[in-house]
């Protein structure tokens, strides 16, 4: 499977925040807010490794054609992220605005699609 090692490592550090105090790491200032939303709501299922059910599901679906880790995707438009968060997919439920507000969802979509060329 293709795997951007740097990103992989970054994501591992971010994930460890679930269990540890916040660790400062490099992220473009415009993505700080989006990354926070990602860590809180997405990382528990979408961080690297099969212990994260979202990642395992995507690894299985794409069979090595692309990474199971969403943060490594380079073809993930902001609109797809917003739609999926608000509609859910498979066993992933939709998220309410009291959980992820529209402004937070905008920031999240910008962060997660930062490696995707804009149309």
């Amino acid at each position: 499977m293709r795997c951007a090692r740097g990103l992989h490592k970054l994501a591992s550090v971010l994930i460890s925040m679930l269990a540890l105090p916040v660790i400062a790491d490099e992220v473009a200032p415009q993505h700080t807010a989006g990354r926070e939303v990602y860590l809180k709501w997405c990382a528990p299922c979408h961080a690297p490794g099969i212990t994260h059910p979202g990642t395992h599901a995507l690894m299985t679906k794409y069979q090595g054609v692309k990474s199971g880790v969403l943060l490594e995707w380079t073809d993930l438009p902001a609109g797809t992220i917003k739609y999926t968060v608000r509609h859910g997919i498979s066993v992933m439920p939709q998220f309410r605005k009291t959980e992820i507000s529209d402004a937070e969802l905008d920031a999240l979509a910008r962060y997660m699609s930062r490696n995707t060329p804009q149309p």
Partner: protein
Amino acid sequence: MRVPPGVSPDDFSSSLTEFRRVVGDDWVFTSDEDLNLYRDAYSPFLNEPEERVASGAVAPASTEEVQQIVRIANRYRIPLYTISTGKNLGYGGSAPAYSGSVVLDLKRMNRILEVNEANAYALVEPGVSYFDLYRHIQERKLKVWIDCPDPGWGSVIGNAIDRGGGYTMANYRNHFDSHCGMEVVLPSGELLRTGMGAIPQSQTWQQYKSGCGPWVDGIFSQSNFGIVTKMGFWLMPQPEAYLRCAVSLQRYADLGPLVETLNYLENSRITQGFPDISSPLLGYGPIGQIQLFFERGPGKTSPEQQTLVSEAKLGFSPQLEAYALKSGTPYWEVLLSYYGPMEVIEAQWRATQRHFSRIHDAKFRIVDRVMLPLDPAKIESYHEPEFGVPSLRAFSIGARAPWNPTPSKGHMWFSPIIPRTGDAIIEANRVFGEAARQLDMPLFRTFTLPACFWERSFIFILATPVTEDPATNRHYREGFKKLIEIGGQHGWGEYRTAPVFQQAVMDVYSFNNHALRGFHETLKDAIDPNGILSAGRYAIWPKHLREKQS
């Protein structure tokens, strides 16, 4: 605009205006797009007309706002339905029990009001998730553990008042039992504090549970008598060490003595962690390792073993037992865990071995022996909740995986309480195995072992998938109701269920012509005469809707 049943559009419109005045325009939801976010993602009525949906949603940020909303709802007779984090997936999610209710979404009430390390307790609001409380404790380096269920994004309060469970020591695993003190907004809008909280300036609200006089906390769980806006919980002091051990038994008939010995040891607090019974021979793994099963697929067994297991009846045949003895594959295994100072838990393990040694050929091994806290880098090699660490790993159940190419849309849990005996395990397998075959329900493997969340009883958990096909879902719903009825005929009842099955489950609790239901209804009429709060939750209906349900 959707309108709740029995409410005029004008009244609804006026109530929404008043709700907006209380919480602000951003926190009242009425569009289809916003209200679809309140659908039960795992609804067994997915995309069918009977799916229970909201007519509106309102999200207060404080107890005072909750009180004002309740008073407005009384004025216009608006049916409200309370959720805390809305993540009770498999048990109804964020959708109302009475379709058309306005969801009272407490997610914004997310303050952790106190974590007391010296006496190990916390006071939280309903929007606080297990992740939130865990992070709060970690950031402050407090030496206390939470007890969490498998999915960590649920509400600490919501899970407790739906009477959920976790995985650490017995006195913390039962989340309702481990609470201490509540603040409740009554359906009138009046504010109540229970236990020692009823004393103004109380200094022991989270330190003594019952106060004086009738202890009413229980009526606010699995009910619709009030809105819990604060709740205290006893936390577990961070233990010094952890020991996980396995006891393996070789014969089918050892199941009864296994349970008897386990009961003595657990009820005596010689073992205190989550006991996990499995059968390596029958291919039924420990519940605490279910994520490994879903992540890696079923373990490898020899073709001979597979054939013998498939031909066994209720998990037994003389040939299968002979294979077990010949191959050294344990028939039964129980994983036991111990928390505390190493010298204490090693002594407890020695006592455990002495008691199990009365079973012929019992074998013992230490699976893990670690000092705590665990290295965070290693936590994923464990079942996180057994260390009070929340995760979402349990969503591997049903998710796409190499051995599960067609993921389900969700699941619903059939989970009756059965006695803690070996005989009851076999009887439940016989009864529900037979029923599953007759009803064509895909919930049975060769043999099912129960979960030991609670002391003194078992939960016999079976998962039923939710699909995207209404005909299949209808078939499963009907089968599910039949299983509830069959359980009731054997004296077994569910500990908890999704709103769509609450009526069927409560029908089973029918002693003396449904005296318990009658008492619930008497309470409902007295406490909530306008019937505005969470109509239908656990089959408690207000008077004006009661006849329609029967």
